[in-house]
């Protein structure tokens, strides 16, 4: 029921249009989860600090918990549900699966949407806080583990799956032809663990 404090809005989400009445206080995150059954974006902190609710707004990563739904009208919203092409997972989703880029999985939809943003921002030549040479002539820095960690710092993982998350982002980026220069995967194999235990 529209009033001065509510509106009927149309949101464009994963290529589809949804029309719904919203109280203006509704965040995009609550609209997605509670009204539209798009529960991929997770509510972690609800304060913009954990990144679990990360979605893509007009192709750029953003936190849905600080985005008012009414202010998102007219924008292209992509949630983790909209990434796969049918049964074909998005390359970032596949890399997270292949490299165990998660443990409990709660932060994963946000991590994946954020990683897609990271790879696009890097491809567009955006520097980060750990980029040595900011001059545009220097071109994009190699997407090293340090670069990935800095660029992904808005996504917390309480399970601490960071080592695998960094590898997954690097592999997905490498798949797009990005120079990653990350050290060869320093994963501890079961054999290595056994040897250490014996020694």
């Amino acid at each position, binding site marked *: 029921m529209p009033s001065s404090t509510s509106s009927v809005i149309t949101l464009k989400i994963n290529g589809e249009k949804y029309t719904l009445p919203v109280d203006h206080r509704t965040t995009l995150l609550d609209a997605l989860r509670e009204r539209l059954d798009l529960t991929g974006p997770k509510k972690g902190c609800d*304060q913009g600090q954990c990144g679990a609710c990360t979605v893509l707004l007009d192709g750029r990563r953003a936190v849905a918990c600080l985005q008012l739904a009414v202010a998102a009208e007219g924008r292209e919203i992509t949630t983790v549900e909209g990434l796969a092409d049918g049964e074909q997972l998005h390359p970032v989703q596949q890399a997270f699966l292949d490299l165990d880029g998660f443990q409990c999985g709660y932060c994963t939809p946000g991590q994946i949407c954020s990683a897609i943003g990271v790879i696009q921002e890097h491809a567009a030549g*955006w520097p980060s806080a750990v980029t040595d040479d900011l001059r545009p002539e220097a071109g994009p820095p190699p997407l090293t583990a340090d670069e990935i960690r800095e660029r992904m710092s808005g996504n917390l993982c309480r399970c601490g799956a960071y080592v695998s998350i960094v590898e997954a982002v690097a592999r997905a980026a490498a798949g797009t032809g990005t120079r990653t220069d990350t050290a060869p995967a320093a994963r501890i194999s079961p054999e290595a663990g056994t040897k250490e235990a014996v020694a």
Partner: protein
Amino acid sequence: MREFGYQRASDVAGAVALLGADPDARFLGGGTNLVDLMKTGVERPARLVDVRELPLDRVEMTAVGGLRIGATVTNGDLAAHPEVRRRYPALAQAVLAGASGQLRNMATVGGNLLQRTRCGYFTDVTKPCNKRVPGSGCPAVAGEHHNHAILGASDHCVAVHPSDMAVALTAFDAVVHFETANGPGELPLAEFYLPVADTPHRETALPPGALVTGITLPPAPTAANSRYRKVRERASYAFAIGSVAAALDIRDGVVRDVRLALGAVASRPWRAVEAERVLTGAPADAETYAAAADAELTAARPLPHNGYKVTLMRNLMVAVLTELAEEAAR
């Protein structure tokens, strides 16, 4: 959260007219600070005027060789802009040092300037705070203040300004442009933020109902050799406990021009004018840098739990000036 009306503005004059003289209305940019404060009840607007789609999203060279930055440019776009990185690298570094990638994509330049302090007493509506409720007191003075001000504070408020971007802008003599119902106006950033005194609730010199429309950076060849260094309690995604924006021009071993501003030490970005005075025309060496830092910090009035900031800021100023001198010598 209090219920509120929502209107979206499509042009600057319309936005100013929609807000009018209503003290209960707020402009909404990216919302990364305002929406958060509305959730906690620190901000309780009855009406929001959304200005994110205003045509103020460009970064352009000015006729004299400076930059004009629109108020709705996102922090992400600002830091990525080639002319910002080339001409004012400390500004790009400052923006990149703030928040997270997601928040930088949402947050606007205008909103960054007007963001509120993260002092824990300000953001907790169950606590007194002179900034939030004038006259209610400041628990930080005798309470939790390890990250509070050492310069320019008063007994009424010891909170620090949280922006990284504004520190670099202060070093580069930025001018803030705004629009009111009576026409446009501008304020040098040095006059934009008000001293705390006994009115910590009055944060800026903007007239009531004014909309920030953009920032101008004057041309500054010295700024090409500039740097922003931020110290925080973890490696990424945290507010500063101290930061320095500096630019340095050395000719024949003498400091010809210097810009120095400090962050997380005062209620506003702190231009280190005393240090600049000592540096200008002096030999570009470690002795001068230390003397300059000490001169700036003679005005420091640390609280029981933030005395470390005096040492930190001294060492930070010396380190950044030394790095810039080495950079210039290459």
